[in-house]
Each structure stands twice: as C-alpha cells, then as structure tokens.
C-alpha cells in the first residue's frame, strides 16, 4: 500500500512538472557592491541566476509568454534574513504572492517554489517582500516581461501592435545610509518591530541601476535603427515619482499600464510613473542620430524635482534595410569603444586581423581601448566584419 502511495505521489509530481512551460532559477544574495557614476560604492542585496554571477541592481529580467505555466525555484543564499519573491502585478494566488506572513518565507540556505500562470502580456515587477522597505532599497527587484502567447518579441500583446525594438527603463533610487551593515544585516523576527531609518534622502537616482554620467556614457546608450518604431517599458520601483520626458516629434503614445491595455491611448511626451506603476509607450524614431530622454525624479512629499538625468537613444548611421546582416558594429572606426547590435543570441568572436581568435563577445559592446590600434575582425561564424581602432 505504501509503495502504491509513493508511486502515486511521484506520478503526480511528474505530471505537475510536465505541465511547466517555463522554469527559472533565482538566487537571493546580500553581497553585492554597486558602483555609482561618481565612483562611490555601496553594498546591495539582489537576485542572480547563478551563484557565480555578480549581484547587480536590478536583478535579471524574467521573461515568459502569456499562458505559460511558470515555476520559479528561489534559493536564499544570503547568509542573512529570509527573502521572498513577490510577483508584482501578476495577480497570483495567496500561496505564491511572496508575502511571508500570508504564505511562506525562504530562509538562508533553503529554497521554495513560486508557481503562476502568466496572465496578460505586459510589464511587471518582482521583488522581495520581507522587510520590503529595506530589502527593495537594498536592490532586491527586477522586471517581469510577459510576451504574447506565441512569444513574438515584436508585438505588445495578442492581436496588438508591432514594433521594431523595445527598451525597458526601470526607475529607482538609493540612499546609501540605508545600505550600512547595521541596517542591512537586521535581525528578523516577525513578532518584533523592524527598525528602518526615519529619513529617506537618496543621493543617487537610478535608471536600470545606472546614474548620472553612467547613463550618458556611450556604452550605455540605447541603440536602434533610424526610423525604428520603439516600444518603451517604463517602470518605477523606487520611493520617488518619476517623469519620463521624450523628445517632441517622436509621437509618444502610451497604450498600456500595469499589464493591461488602456481604454484610450494617451498622446503625451511626458509619462509619469509612480512607485509600483508600469506604462508602455510607443515612440516613432526619425533620422536623427541621438534622442535624449529626460528622466526627472521628484519627492512625493513636496513634489520637488531632486534629479534630472538623460537616457540617450542612439540610432545607427547604417541603413540596414539593404544589408542582411545578423549583427553590426558602430562607430567604426573608433578610439576603442565599439557598440554591437547582434540579432542572434549566440556570442560573437573577436579575432586579430590575421585571424587569430582572441575572445568571445557576449555584451552589446566591446572595449578595445587597452588594445593596440589597428584592424580586428568580429565574426558570428557566418559573417565577418572588419573593425578599425584608430
């Protein structure tokens, strides 16, 4: 009898697992170091996909398709407080909502599963919901993108509107006082008060974890082609309000919020995103080479704008519509920094001019500033492009 029951349990588990469309491993960590544009550093918490990966803020983006059955295997390897994953906006059931006192917390060196069915295509968030005022400030957040049922990466939702390229801009802030060890390494006892600093005065305002001159560094430009139709995913996980101000003439058109189409599109160059909100906005690029997006962060208590930064969209001077390239590189020639647009997911390879393999390239740029001037070759195995460092 016991054998039959055991086999039955195994069978049920196998059946349940066979219905999972998308598995994701997420690891909670507390040993991140975040470097700001002025060189200052602060300790962070965060999420990674592997134990060896550096903790970055924000965490990795989780992408799945509408209708997918998703399982997140969440490990807490933080040496500290318990953590959870709250699937913000995905309307999951109570057990999978990531609020410890109403479901479960994952203690250090333990793991737990979050199951959900991705409901609607759109932009969502995930974050820790334990001591959340501290743990979000510490960096435990990231984006969830739900694509249409067929996984189309150039369509906003089933039967929706197509685009050539999408970008996500996730706003947040950091007050480094909140990142002191005495705050981050707090005791955790749900029956006892958890103390947080009474004053929140962020020194750094972040877009996708970058601040100030990091955002205007060409390495961090958003690259597109001239005349591209862009889909912007705008989100705010900070404790300030954010205004995204697009250049006039791009016909900014906001069509969705919080994972649902808007009943009426909004034509406005300014999109205000308050904490926890998400918006999705179309932009129609023209033939300019640079499109600066102004991002203002304002204090929710007095509405004073405390930071104004720029995110730059750079368009390629190449007319790729007549070139069937899988990837392209610009600027070329350059002083050493080359941006790469790679349509494939496979890593590219860098060679010397005479064909000696140097290294793989998995980022969307390559920095050759420390290499000698001259000619190099980048190849995807099918096509090779000569680049010149001058």
């Amino acid at each position: 009898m016991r054998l039959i029951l055991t086999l039955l349990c195994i069978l049920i588990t196998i059946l349940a697992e066979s219905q999972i469309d998308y598995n994701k491993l997420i690891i909670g960590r507390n040993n991140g170091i975040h470097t700001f544009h002025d060189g200052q550093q602060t300790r962070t918490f965060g999420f990674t996909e592997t134990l060896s990966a550096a903790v970055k803020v924000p965490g990795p983006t989780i992408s799945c398709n509408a209708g997918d059955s998703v399982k997140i295997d969440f490990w807490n390897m933080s040496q500290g407080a318990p953590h959870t994953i709250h699937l913000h906006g995905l309307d999951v059931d109570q057990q999978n909502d990531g609020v410890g006192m109403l479901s479960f917390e994952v203690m250090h060196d333990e793991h737990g599963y979050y199951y959900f069915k991705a409901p609607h295509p759109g932009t969502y968030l995930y974050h820790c919901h334990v001591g959340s005022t501290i743990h979000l400030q510490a960096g435990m957040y990231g984006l969830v993108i739900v694509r249409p049922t067929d996984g189309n990466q150039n369509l906003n939702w089933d039967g929706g509107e197509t685009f050539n390229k999408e970008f996500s801009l996730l706003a947040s802030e950091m007050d480094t006082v909140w990142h002191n060890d005495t705050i981050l390494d707090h005791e955790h006892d749900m029956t006892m008060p958890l103390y947080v600093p009474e004053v929140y005065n962020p020194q750094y305002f972040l877009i996708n974890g970058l601040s100030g001159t990091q955002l205007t560094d060409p390495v961090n430009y958003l690259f597109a082609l001239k005349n591209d139709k862009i889909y912007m995913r705008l989100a705010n996980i900070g404790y300030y309000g954010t205004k995204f101000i697009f250049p006039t003439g791009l016909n900014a058109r906001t069509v969705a919020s919080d994972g649902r189409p808007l009943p009426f599109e909004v034509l406005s160059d300014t999109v205000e995103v308050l904490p926890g909100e998400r918006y999705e906005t179309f932009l129609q690029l023209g033939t300019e080479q640079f499109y600066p997006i102004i991002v203002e962060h304002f204090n929710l208590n007095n509405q004073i704008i405390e930071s104004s930064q720029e995110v730059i969209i750079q368009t390629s001077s190449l007319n790729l519509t007549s070139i069937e390239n899988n990837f392209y590189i610009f600027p070329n020639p350059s002083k050493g920094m080359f941006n790469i647009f790679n349509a494939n997911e496979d890593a590219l390879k860098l060679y010397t001019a005479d064909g000696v393999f140097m290294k793989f390239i998995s980022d969307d740029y390559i920095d050759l500033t420390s290499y000698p001037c001259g000619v190099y070759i980048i190849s995807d195995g099918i096509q090779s492009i000569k680049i010149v460092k001058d």
Partner: protein
Amino acid sequence: MFAKHKNIAILLFFVLITGKLLSNQISFRLEIKNHSILFNDGHSVDAKLFSGISNNINCSELLIWQSTDTLNLKVVNLDIASHGFMSNNLFDLGIIAPGDSASITVSDFQPGIYRYFDATQSPYNEYLGLSGIIHIKNPQENTPYFYWDLREYQEEWNDQLNLGVFPNLLNYSPKYFTINGNSEPDINNDPIARVTGNVGQELKIVIVNNGLSIHSMHFHGYHAVLVNSSKNSSHVGRSKDTFPLYPSEYIVLSLTPDKPGEYPVHDHNLVAVTGGGIYHAGMFTTLLISP
C-alpha cells in the same frame, strides 16, 4: 381642455408632495475638536477633526446619505480658533467662530463622492485633520463600499501648527502614515476600511487623499477598475494594480475578486508602510476574500 390640464397639475402636485414626504431626513452634527492621535511606537500628535458619532476617534467623520435624502447638517466649533466647513459643488458654511455653530438644510443631491474640508489656512488645517469624505449614495445601488481616508503626519509640524507657526511645505517629511487615522495593524480592525467580500462579488473602494504627500496604492492579488477620478476623468475604465493619488484627489475603484485569499494593499512608496521608523506600521491593510 382646461380641466384636463388641471387634473395633470393636481397629479403632479401630489407626486411632488408624496416625494417630499418619502424623502428621508438625515441629520449630522459635527464638532470641531482637538484630539491626540497615538501611534504604535508610543508617539502622538495633537490633531483636529470634525467629530461625529462614529467610533473612529482618529479621523474626521465619514458622511454617507442617499441622493434622495434631505440633509440637516450642523457644525459646532469647539476649538479656540475660527474654522470653515465646505465641500466643492455641495455647500459652504462659511467661517465658524470659536464656540459658534453653522447649520444648513439641503436636498436634491447628485450621487457621488465629495471631499469636505476647512479651507482656512489651507492646507494646514486640512493637514491637521479637518477634512473628510462624503458619499452621496444612489438609492438603486447595493454594492458594498469601503472607504480609505489617507493622510500622514509629521510630529514637528503638529507642534508648530498648534503654536501658530506655519511650517514650510518644502520641508515636509512625514513619519506616520494612516488610513482612516489608523496604521497597520489597526487598519484591519476598522470595518469601514477593511475590505471583505466574496469571489465574484463586486466591491467598491473609495480612496481619498486628505494628506499632503502623493500616495501610490498597490493591490496584491487583483487588478481593480477605476470608475471615478476627481483628477483624471479620462483615466476612468483603466484596469490597474497600482493607483497614484495626489493631495486632495479621490478615486473610486471597482474590484470583483476572481479567487479567495488574503492579499495586501499598501502604499508602494515603501517609506509609507513604516511608522516612526518601524516597518509595517503604516499604510498597509489586507483584502479578505472568501470563496
């Protein structure tokens, strides 16, 4: 011909008289009072409120009547300073001197949500607590309603205001965040605030920002539909999980739960889920949905 018109006139007269007789008389007496609000960390602020007959002593009275009612409203000023009482598009009782009172009788209302407030020394008297919610109900509607009066406090501000000093609005940095005058965990003990219902049942939630900060209320578990907005009427119909509220703004949400469970709702400016530097002592409540 004349006799026929006369009959119609008599009939209309009786209909009007009958309607007036059937319309309910509803009376409210509000007292402008000083009151100390005690927070969970032991600190307190000296606030003011329009006090009525409800048990909530931390928040100005929620006024509910039906659009067919005749309202008798009396406001008595028990404070040592003059105060006003008004509601945009409804009535204005003018300035009420200390120890004095003002009354009004009104009928023929449009159903809807309204704010009432003391417009003197704006926005400081509203900050201190002299503002509240009016719901004029449509007699045909049976949907359960819940009401969240959002406001926040900064101890030093209350101290200064009670000394007649007006703090600089640019230096506002509140430490206590309340719904109907309560912070977590007490919000869930307030039946006006604590949302309870069943799967498939339409529930309506009125959220009024009577504070000075912007709040961004996030719902776990469900999207709700915006059915009324005082600031952005063009946003009506949006289905969202997070709703921003600017000062003095109110919204009405329709929520029809699709599953049972207990799900948090809180300000996603997560500083506002703290109180006096203690986590989970601010604007945090839960929806409790039965199968």
